[in-house]
């Protein structure tokens, strides 16, 4: 078996607030295989972004990791010294964020920002860095790269800014790319282009990627494997083709069923009743039980474990013994 690109083990994380510690992640574990794209799908408050931030220790000051490990090349990123972590960030594990216009520095040209990234990690002359920066922009599909290096982020559209962010993330050929809702702020046509670009570049370079999204359809476009997160726990993890054709968890089934389709007109949408739990709400039993139409008595009492079968994981008592 090849070594995993990244392993998350039993990650527990909470936010410290005036009302005490609110648990956000409750024992998240997964393995990212090299060269694969794992989509982490969840609603707001499910902990998907927080988990991504914890990988590179970019958490806000009131977040606390209670338990767990994040292993990269055998080392635990959570206990790494900040100087050592700085050599991992960007060079080995890179990240792109949701709002590209907000993530770029408005007072520096795009070229300056790209060159800064390159020169922070590599010993190269400004001239070489400049040449590489132009090549990167060309690679992400920006025309007249030389000229555009002189421009400021406000002169770029949202989609173009996201291309710059992708160029910056790929500048140092990382092993792992974390993309946190990279297309949520973009229009559908631009979204389709960016998804294609990410997939293409990922296949060329053979890096692994964690793709965070709330949009199942987007996950279906890019992912090899999908992890469904609900209230800080993995509800289901399976290869993408399997998850979309045979969802096992009632939550996944409900989510897929409730999506309006562009392919046909539906009279009614089979909606999931109720609301997702608030972050930090104390939950005994399965977090989805109050909204689940298949819930048994024991679902409210104890939280089901993750049942594993044929490379799929499901947190549901209905899968017990199957």
């Amino acid at each position, binding site marked *: 078996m090849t070594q995993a690109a990244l392993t998350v083990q039993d990650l527990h994380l909470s936010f410290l607030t005036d009302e005490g510690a609110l648990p956000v992640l409750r024992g998240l574990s997964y393995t990212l295989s090299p060269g694969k794209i794992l989509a982490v799908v969840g609603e707001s408050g499910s902990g998907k972004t927080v988990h991504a931030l914890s990988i590179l220790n970019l958490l806000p000051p009131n977040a606390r990791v209670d338990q767990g490990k994040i292993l990269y090349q055998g080392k635990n990123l959570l206990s790494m010294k900040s100087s050592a972590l700085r050599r991992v960030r960007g060079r080995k594990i890179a990240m792109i964020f949701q709002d590209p216009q907000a993530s770029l520095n408005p007072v520096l040209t795009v070229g300056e920002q790209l060159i800064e990234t390159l020169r922070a990690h590599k010993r190269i002359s400004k001239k070489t860095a400049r040449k590489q920066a132009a090549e990167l922009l060309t690679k992400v599909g920006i025309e007249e790269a030389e000229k555009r290096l002189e421009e400021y982020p406000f002169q770029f559209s949202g989609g173009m800014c996201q291309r710059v962010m992708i160029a910056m993330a790929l500048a140092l050929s990382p092993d792992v790319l974390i993309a946190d809702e990279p297309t949520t702020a973009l229009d559908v046509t631009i979204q389709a282009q960016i998804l294609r670009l990410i997939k293409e570049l990922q296949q060329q370079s053979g890096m692994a990627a964690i793709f965070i999204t709330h949009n199942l359809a987007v996950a*279906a476009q890019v992912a090899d494997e999908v992890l469904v997160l609900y209230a800080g726990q993995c509800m289901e993890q399976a290869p993408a083709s399997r998850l979309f054709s045979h*969802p096992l968890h009632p939550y996944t089934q409900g989510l897929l069923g409730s999506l309006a389709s562009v392919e046909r*007109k539906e009279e009614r949408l089979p909606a*999931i009743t109720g*609301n*997702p739990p608030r972050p930090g709400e104390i939950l005994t039993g399965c977090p989805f039980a109050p909204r689940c139409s298949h819930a048994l008595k024991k679902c409210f009492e104890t939280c089901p474990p993750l049942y594993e079968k044929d490379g799929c994981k499901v947190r549901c008592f209905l899968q017990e013994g199957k």
Partner: protein
Amino acid sequence: MTAALVIENLHKTYVRKAWLGKRVEKPVLRGIDLTLEEGKVLGLVGESGCGKSTLCKVILGIEPITSGTVQVAGVNINGLSTAKWRDLRRKMQVVYQDPYASLDPRFTVRQLVSEPLDIHKLYMDKSARENYLRELLNSVQLDVAFLDRYPHEFSGGQRQRIAIARALALEPQILIADEPVSALDVSVQAQILNLLKDIAQKRQLSMLFVTHDFAVARFLCDDIAVMHQGKIVEYAPAEELFAQPRQAYTQKLLSAVPTVPRGAL
């Protein structure tokens, strides 16, 4: 058939005074012709920046018209007096995108839903008001016990139900819904879409439903108008548009919509 809303050759240009008093003009709506038939749901679909929210603002009288006409329930809204607007707002109401921003955090649900009734002096009798409020909350499937709570105590989906109840309080004929589900959690969107569909049918509402999501538009709308750079590029009955999009722009948009492969579902 009469029309709830008739828009003819509508132009809207934002003007900004730049440095040294130079006028910078930005045309946003460039000749819109659009009709919302009575009792129908018209979907307005377009990408960000195409002018769909500006169109809503002009219809609601929040932004003045640059040129052209807008008729709401037979009334031309250009230069309408405040008193006439007040009358018109009994017939036309709005639901906005973000229920975290559109509800005053210092108002209880009771105050939020009562405010339009107070302004128009409706149901002023105490017990009649109480009964009506209960009825309203029931119609959006909210528990009447919520009346004395504040918006921060509710989830996004519940807040949007409160916003809908507030919009329905005056029993309007026309509802303008500006992306009412795009700020909501995925698992809650379907509930609100079903609710809007039921309400539109039950109350014979004419609805202008603004969205960037074709799937949502197909579920809810009778007709669809596709907007691009301040113009309506295609207008057709929904099923016709999906079966055979005529304009290249519509085809491009539709082909870009990501879909979930639906095997066993």
